[in-house]
């Protein structure tokens, strides 16, 4: 659709039949501009929907994580207590032997 030449100018390559149907350069340029804007709006809407979804997903996870961390912390505390009991039991055996 766009090409650039050495003088840094960009050119629109409009198929002749399309240009003839539209009728003028000004109208062609206007239609291209509106078409690009329309496409841009559609893509932005999609990107915004994706961002919103990611935000919601992260918020949900952030709400879950403190509970998850609390449960893990309980498990770790229990395992640490168990270790002390186990070491104590094994020490007693050593003394007995």
């Amino acid at each position, binding site marked *: *659709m*766009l*090409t650039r030449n050495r003088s840094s*100018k*960009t*050119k*629109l*390559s*409009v*198929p*002749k*039949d*399309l*240009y003839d149907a*539209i009728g003028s*350069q000004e109208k*062609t*340029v*206007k*239609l*291209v*501009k*509106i*078409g*690009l*804007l*329309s*496409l*841009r*709006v559609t*893509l*932005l*809407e999609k*990107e*915004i929907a994706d*961002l*919103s979804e*990611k*935000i919601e997903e*992260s*918020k949900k*996870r*952030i709400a879950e*994580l*403190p509970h*998850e*961390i609390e449960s*893990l912390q309980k*498990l*770790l505390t229990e*395992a*640490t207590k*168990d*270790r002390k*009991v*186990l070491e104590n*039991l*094994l020490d*007693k*055996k050593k003394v007995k032997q």
Partner: protein
Amino acid sequence: MNIHQWDSNVKRISLEKDCEIYELAKKLDISPDSEALRNIISLGMDALHLGVQLEKTAKKLEETKEKLGSDLKEIAFQRIALESQSVGIRNQIVKSYRDNRALTMHLCTKGSRNEYERRMRDKFIQKYIIDSKLI
């Protein structure tokens, strides 16, 4: 914008380097072929009645996207901090369970002196040898 030359089946229209069309096409990463231009012009015809409104809408959406991007970045930092904390504790649990499993196996090789020792040994066998795959 200036008018330009005719190739056999193509009309070339030059745009200035800073032209809005050029910037928009660059943002959209439009491939440079006539078929793409046909589709763009077709979209332009469908949206012709929207005119100036489209520019305002695009600008507003750009601002919304920027704000949401910044919100997401902030939320991502919070999430990463919590996820790291969770993973850190989980790793400690895995290590503790592995150590306790080894100690329990060691305990199994010794005889039990009383009811309490037997009860604790059975509890640890259940927890760290039989059920430990749950962690």
